[in-house]
């Protein structure tokens, strides 16, 4: 009952804030990684280099799929913004369903920008189905395809260190985010611009994916406060010896 109540409350709050957001634009806190990414995307289009987006191995049938969906929202915006580039972005993923969705999203991005003829099926790739085969399939893209910036966003494990190392060796820019704790600690230690915790899910809002993404951030804030109140309340009740 609590679970379905939470889902309904969240959905209603999201719809309400999305509706209210239409009237007043959101004010987002500054996240350096996104600011730098915006600059790098512009530069990549100008100097004719490529953007590489790696969506990880998030299986859409598990809860890990949410990070992949966040990556797809970002991909959609990046595809629109780089559709006029001489070299279209390349997307790699470690899950077959995700790679099909990435092709679909790329095509939709080009269509929205009025450049559907620029779309190539080969730009949305399945790199490998196991963690290390995925890393092994992704590293050559960074190395051989004139890539100037990498966006590594989604579900990764420790293999993310190899991707970061490859980007570093080629002296390319890298923005990285994962929903996996061990990958987050690795990215914190090795990436230029790591996104920590729920910043991964803010990518859509920061890349201008729409009002619903901005509203999502506000709903997350409301829910976070509710969780804090619940944790503190639970601790106080426990201290008072009240069990529930």
């Amino acid at each position, binding site marked *: 009952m609590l679970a379905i109540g939470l889902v309904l409350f969240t959905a209603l709050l999201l719809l309400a804030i999305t509706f209210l957001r239409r009237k007043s634009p959101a004010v987002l806190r500054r996240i350096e990684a996104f600011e730098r990414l915006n600059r790098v995307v512009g530069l990549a289009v100008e100097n004719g280099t490529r953007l590489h987006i790696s969506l990880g191995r998030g299986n859409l049938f598990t809860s890990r799929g*949410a990070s992949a969906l966040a990556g797809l929202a970002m991909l959609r915006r990046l595809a629109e913004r780089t559709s006029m580039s001489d070299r279209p972005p390349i997307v790699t993923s470690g899950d*077959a369903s995700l790679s099909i969705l990435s092709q679909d999203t790329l095509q939709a991005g080009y269509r929205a920008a009025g450049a559907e003829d620029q779309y190539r*099926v*080969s730009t949305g790739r399945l790199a490998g189905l196991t963690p*290390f*085969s995925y890393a092994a399939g992704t590293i050559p893209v960074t190395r*051989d395809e004139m890539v100037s910036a990498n966006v590594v966003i989604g579900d990764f494990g420790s293999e993310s260190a190899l991707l970061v190392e490859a980007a570093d060796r080629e002296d390319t820019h890298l923005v990285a985010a994962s929903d996996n704790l061990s990958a987050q600690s*690795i990215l914190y*230690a090795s990436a230029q611009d790591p996104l920590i915790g729920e910043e991964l899910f803010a990518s859509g809002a920061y890349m201008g994916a729409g009002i619903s993404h901005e509203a999502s951030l506000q709903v*997350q804030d409301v829910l976070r406060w509710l969780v804090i109140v619940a944790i503190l309340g639970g601790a106080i009740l426990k201290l008072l010896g009240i069990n529930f």
Partner: protein
Amino acid sequence: MRVFTAAIAMVSGLIVLLGYFYPLDALTQLRIMLTDWSIIIAAMAVLVGIANLVFVQMDKIRRREKNSIYGALLVLSLIGTFGLGLVFGLDHQLMRLAVDAVIVPVESSLMAILAVTLVYASIRLLRRRADVMTVIFLLIALIFLVLMMPTPFGPVLGDGLNGFTLQILGMFSRGGARGLLIGIALGTLLTGIRVLFGIDRPYGGN
């Protein structure tokens, strides 16, 4: 067509969700059926993905791109193992040899490279981002490694102090990890709801 795909996704998602919350017989049956269908679609997606992988590598070979020799090796290995699997079955010794003699050693080697990469990344971290958080991060990682290190003389700080220090450090680390996980869970919930109610539609060319 786009409205149709969105409607199918929304209705399917809602049925599966309700099936989890209300274990009514009809809903559970429907949920299982939809899950079975999605598993079949996922299996087909693997075939499509592999076809895409072969297509991309063949394209590289055809255009004589840099390092396309590795692409050729990949395609040949893929055809070879696929053919062997079809002819002899997955349990045949040759198939097991392909896994034990090729895939496992290659992945182990990558794991070894990973360990070196991580040590190198930690060393470079201070050069890249020299701030308080970086120092705390490295210091705690180092203390954890030293305290958990097996030595011939037992724990480094002695049984009591070693355990106590690990417990104190673990308390802060677990708290931080839970905070991150709560944030990720909230993000996951919102992303799921956006897709479930058709606000985000990463399918059907939307």
